[in-house]
């Protein structure tokens, strides 16, 4: 068991170089990859989420922590797969058709990865059929749809409708987010959840796959 907090501290500080070095050093010392994820990376991203929610951290700090976490995860992920460790859930994420904005979507994707989810990022301007295909192929538990623009919000409704028509609506939980999106809109279009920030989106996703509620 590894009791050091070097990787944890590096992620919370958003120091990608230090996070990568700490990961490599811990693995070289024989620390189990799963231990690094569960004892350092997930708690670190929880802490980053808490700091964001109490407005000590803002978008730049979230982005830096996400990068630090991602760098470490790239080293660890193949080892987890080789060891047969299952992700806590599988997520397909993308910005809906007609919308090219991706900062919010990328933040959610990286925080979800940090929380132990397997994330398939479809990018921006994603047609409903592409979401549906990825959900089927990846056996996704959750589909996260993002939109920044008022004019592209209706594509969220269209995408959910396409899931119904494809017969996969009941197989996947649909979470939506983005500046103009509200809980009321989520209810109107039949989404399963809405979050107004990236940190809370992770808590929601965890809840959807039955691994606890909000992180804090």
């Amino acid at each position, binding site marked *: 068991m590894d009791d050091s907090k070097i990787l944890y501290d590096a992620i919370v500080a958003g120091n990608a170089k230090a996070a990568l070095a700490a990961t490599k050093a811990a693995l070289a010392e024989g620390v189990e990859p799963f231990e690094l994820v569960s004892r350092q990376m997930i708690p670190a991203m929880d802490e980053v989420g808490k700091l964001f929610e109490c407005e000590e951290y*803002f*978008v730049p700090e979230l982005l*830096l922590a996400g990068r630090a976490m991602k760098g470490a995860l790239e080293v660890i992920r193949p080892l987890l797969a080789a060891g047969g460790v299952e992700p806590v859930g599988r997520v397909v994420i993308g910005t809906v058709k007609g919308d090219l904005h991706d900062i919010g979507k990328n933040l959610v994707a990286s925080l979800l990865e940090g929380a132990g989810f397997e994330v398939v990022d479809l990018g921006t301007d994603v047609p409903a059929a592409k979401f549906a295909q990825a959900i089927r192929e990846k056996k996704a538990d959750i589909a996260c749809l993002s939109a920044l623009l008022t*004019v592209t919000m209706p594509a969220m409704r269209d995408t959910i409708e396409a899931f119904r028509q494809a017969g996969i609506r009941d197989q996947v939980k649909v979470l939506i987010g983005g*500046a103009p999106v509200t809980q009321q809109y989520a209810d109107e279009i039949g989404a399963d959840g809405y979050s107004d920030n990236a940190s809370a989106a992770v808590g929601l996703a965890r809840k959807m796959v039955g691994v606890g509620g909000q992180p804090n």
Partner: protein
Amino acid sequence: MTSRERLQAALRHEQPDRIPVDFGSTGTTGVHASVVAGLREHYGLEKRPVKIHEPYQMLGLVEDDLRQAMGLDVEGAFALNTMFGFPAEAWKPFRLWDLDVLVPVDFNTTVDTNGDLLIYPEGDLSAPPSGRMPRGGYFFDSIIRQEPIDDDRLDPADNLEEFGPISEAEVAHYRRIGARAAASQWGVIAALPGTYLGDIALVPAPFLKYPKGIRDVTEWYVSTRSRRSYIHKMFEKQVEYAFDNLARVHAAVGDAAFDAVFVCGTDFGTQTSTFCSVATYRELWLPYYREISGWIHRNTRWKTFKHSCGAVEKLIPSFIESGFDILNPVQCSASGMDPRHLKSAYGRTLVFWGGGVDTQKTLPFGTPEEVRREVLERCEVFSRDGGFVFNSIHNLQAGTPVANVVAMLDAVREFNGSAKGD
């Protein structure tokens, strides 16, 4: 009161005869070309294609006949070049999906394999495209052109290519628009060269052919935390350039031409929070803004206009300390941006240019009666003792029902009528 006197009174925090109204004078108080076309038809104006004066957001030019029909009071004195680095002049026909419009002659596009529209900096088809409009979309987004970043070789000068001394052609342009503005019956707000500090819309530099430095949006945001000395050096130099450019513009146009100037459009708010702490704003932005605003206030009568979307209530005292006279778009739909609180806490100091109606929900998706009710309420709250220019929260977006826009304008007229006791 003339429109100009009305705007000036509102900017001085004096009660004008009625609330001045703006649509179309800036890149953040504008109207999408499709809505301009719909309004021209609604008001029975001469049938002619709308001119796209700002191609990035596909904003349509609000000409004098439409300005009169809509009951507006403000016109814009635009910069020489658009966001894609070419002037809005020498018009040519263009079909935007199902709408016939006029675009500047250097508005050169190609269609990629997805059917997306690509546009080129300075209209140069041999340069990499700098903007993309998804097939069936309504406006462009910047294509990120980021060279690999080597922190040891980063030079703030690379991010300053667009903020250097303005050309003689730009000075001549200001002389022309200044002469026109000085004689205008409308209130006038002008775009200024090079006073934007870290505006995320400008960071990717869609107007440059081969931008250098930090041009990726995410990279810029993290740099405000991780490369702060780089940004300080950049802003220091930018302010130095701005002083020279402002002096040349002021010499070319004089004092009487402009009532307000658009100083900076950097967004500091998200829907629910800010992009940085108050402490970061005060360290990284405030000193430079204060220098720019200070120069303007010492040397001109222009009022300084600051645009920032989002939940910026906590930053407003620092905006005021930065020397900003006017806040736009006053996003009342964001956290903490309650109209009554904003007016009572900051209304004696700050002019609210916006906030008239929500554009995320009410205006695009509400009924005309819902629009009317919200507009009347906002006018009631914001208009007391001047300090209010009616505008929606940011541009009128494509797809906004014309009936709702008309309901909005009629509600302002209704309020103005009752305020006068008619």
